[in-house]
């Protein structure tokens, strides 16, 4: 996402007309799959920073030096109905990934409530996969065990996963030898093959090539037509307008807009442009010496820092 993967528009003319085009917006009375109310997530940085000898002694002496807590997300309320595909967009570090982590039940809210009705399947990270030392095949079985799916079912759907992932002989090689595209395909194949009621995707789709992109599009649409819900976080606005029936804009840990994809994307673009202009303006003024130099602001302009500790985003 830092490099902003360029995606050319694709034509879908020769695809099945049934499955092409935007997913249908479901009725308002469709049953809710996810209900989020006043959701807030607070992080405490006390345990995530790298401690140096000097700072650890300093910390021991005066514990409460500065508040190391911050809200990654606050006051979020929305409902996702069955058959809806919701795109979550917003600038880096706004709280999009945190939102997905809470929806998936991986982190618990610090305030508010999340209610989930249905089996969730997640694909939240491509950097990892499940176990780097195990083969792709073993990872499929591991994923099944983690999701609690019976062995017989996994045996039945494994050929389908392998076929969709299309990674050839690599299926028997350890996961650490995979390219990011292969990980994406395998991960997506597993996450969708288990027939989830709710699918959560975090920036995982843009790694794929055109063929994979089209394949995953078909699959997401068929998930939606089966009245299941999809929530995806992405920086690729074409995905949002193509795939989503609705979009949510998150800025600074707050849900600032919730509506039709085109409108939300337009607002997001306007806000991003405004932010960029404001920063450029600030840098320009620093250069002219009108305001003191703020290194944090310049760093932000030069590009987002991908936190190694992975504590925020």
């Amino acid at each position, binding site marked *: 996402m830092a490099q902003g993967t360029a995606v050319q528009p694709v034509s879908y003319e020769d695809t099945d007309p049934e499955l092409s085009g935007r997913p249908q917006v479901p009725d308002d009375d469709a049953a809710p799959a996810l209900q989020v109310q006043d959701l*807030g997530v607070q*992080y*405490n940085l006390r*345990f*995530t920073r790298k401690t140096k000898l000097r700072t650890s002694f300093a910390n021991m002496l005066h514990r409460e030096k500065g508040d190391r807590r911050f809200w990654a997300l606050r006051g979020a309320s929305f409902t996702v109905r069955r058959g809806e595909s919701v795109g979550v967009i917003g600038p880096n570090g706004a709280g999009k990934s945190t939102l997905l*982590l*809470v929806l*998936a*039940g*991986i*982190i*618990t*809210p*610090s*305030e*508010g*409530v*999340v*209610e*989930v*009705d*249905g*089996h*969730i399947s*997640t694909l*939240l*990270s491509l*950097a*990892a*996969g*499940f*176990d780097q*030392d*195990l083969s792709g095949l*073993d990872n499929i*079985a*591991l*994923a099944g*065990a*983690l*999701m*609690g*799916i*019976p*062995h017989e*079912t996994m045996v039945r*759907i494994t050929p389908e996963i392998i076929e969709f992932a299309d990674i050839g002989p690599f299926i028997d090689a350890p996961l650490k030898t995979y390219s990011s595209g292969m990980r994406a395909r395998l991960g997506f194949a597993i996450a969708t093959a*288990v*027939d989830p*009621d709710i699918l959560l995707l975090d920036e995982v789709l843009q790694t794929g090539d055109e063929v994979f992109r089209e394949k995953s599009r078909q699959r997401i649409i068929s998930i939606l037509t089966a009245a299941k819900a999809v929530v995806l976080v992405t920086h690729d606005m074409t995905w949002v307008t193509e795939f989503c029936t609705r979009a949510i804009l998150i800025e600074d840990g707050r849900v600032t807009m919730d509506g039709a994809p085109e409108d939300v994307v337009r607002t997001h673009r306007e806000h991003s442009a405004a932010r960029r202009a404001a920063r450029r303006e600030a840098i320009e003024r620093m250069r002219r010496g009108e305001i003191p130099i703020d290194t944090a602001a310049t760093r932000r302009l030069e590009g987002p820092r991908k936190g190694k500790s*992975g*504590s925020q985003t």
Partner: protein
Amino acid sequence: MQIASDAPATFRSSARRPGTLELLSTAFREVMSRRRLIRYLVGAEIKKKGTDTVLGNVWWILDPLMSLMVYVFVMTIVFARKQEDFAVFLLAAMIPFKWFTQTLSDSVSAVVSQGQLIKQIQFPKIVLPIVVNGAGLVNLAFGFGVLFAVVLLWPGFADHLSYMILFVPLIAVIQFVLMLGLSMFVAALTVFYRDIGIIIGHVLRLLFYVAPILWTFESATGRGDLLRQELGEVGFSLLRYNPVAVLLEAYRTCIYGVTKGESWAPASPADLGWESLAIVLLISVVLLVLGTIVFKRLEPAFAKVL
């Protein structure tokens, strides 16, 4: 087509902190419903262990054999220890102790090493320390396999075999409960304080020397009386009646027999310290309950900190 799953189909997560009893019942329910996951992870753990070495699974047998040879050499040649059938004397305590150290040091990384997994998918984290203990059982099985092979095959060692070995599984169960409880604490606290891993390493090394592995309390040549003079009653009791010492002495009584000076005599059930074993079991159960509570309390923060 709806795919069945062990994972709950609906859930509600909120900021509410569940009570202690609720934590315990959740933990129990999670473990019972995810037995298949535990079995799978134990299998994967064992599968991975040998894959990077040339000899692979042969190490399961070779490893305890080689450490046996090292200690027999050091103790009988270098320290001129004259204990009769020293290999049996040593193995009877060393195999369970290796099980103990291996499991505890694996517990340090049980949760921490699974950071990526924890941030990717929701599953009951309590299975992780249980998996470490499960994989440890395989370690123990091979260790005892070597032990009994040596006892049966080496001339003269078979004399040590008696119906007393029937008590070994009972002692192992007590040790298993103790380790499971300690694992819960170690695995959960290491997430927040990585320092624990280093401390555990040193504690285990110290324990190797202060626990009756290379020596015993009972014999005339053993350290019993000397230690009592050196440490005083309190220090001696700590050394003699700490859970690890009690368990190791019990194993030795069952497998080697009762130490009489440099010689030995066949043991009877009366030679086992039943009272101490019962207390150790009680302590272990309490530790397991407390450890589970601590683990479940800290679990929600794992994904945020890792």
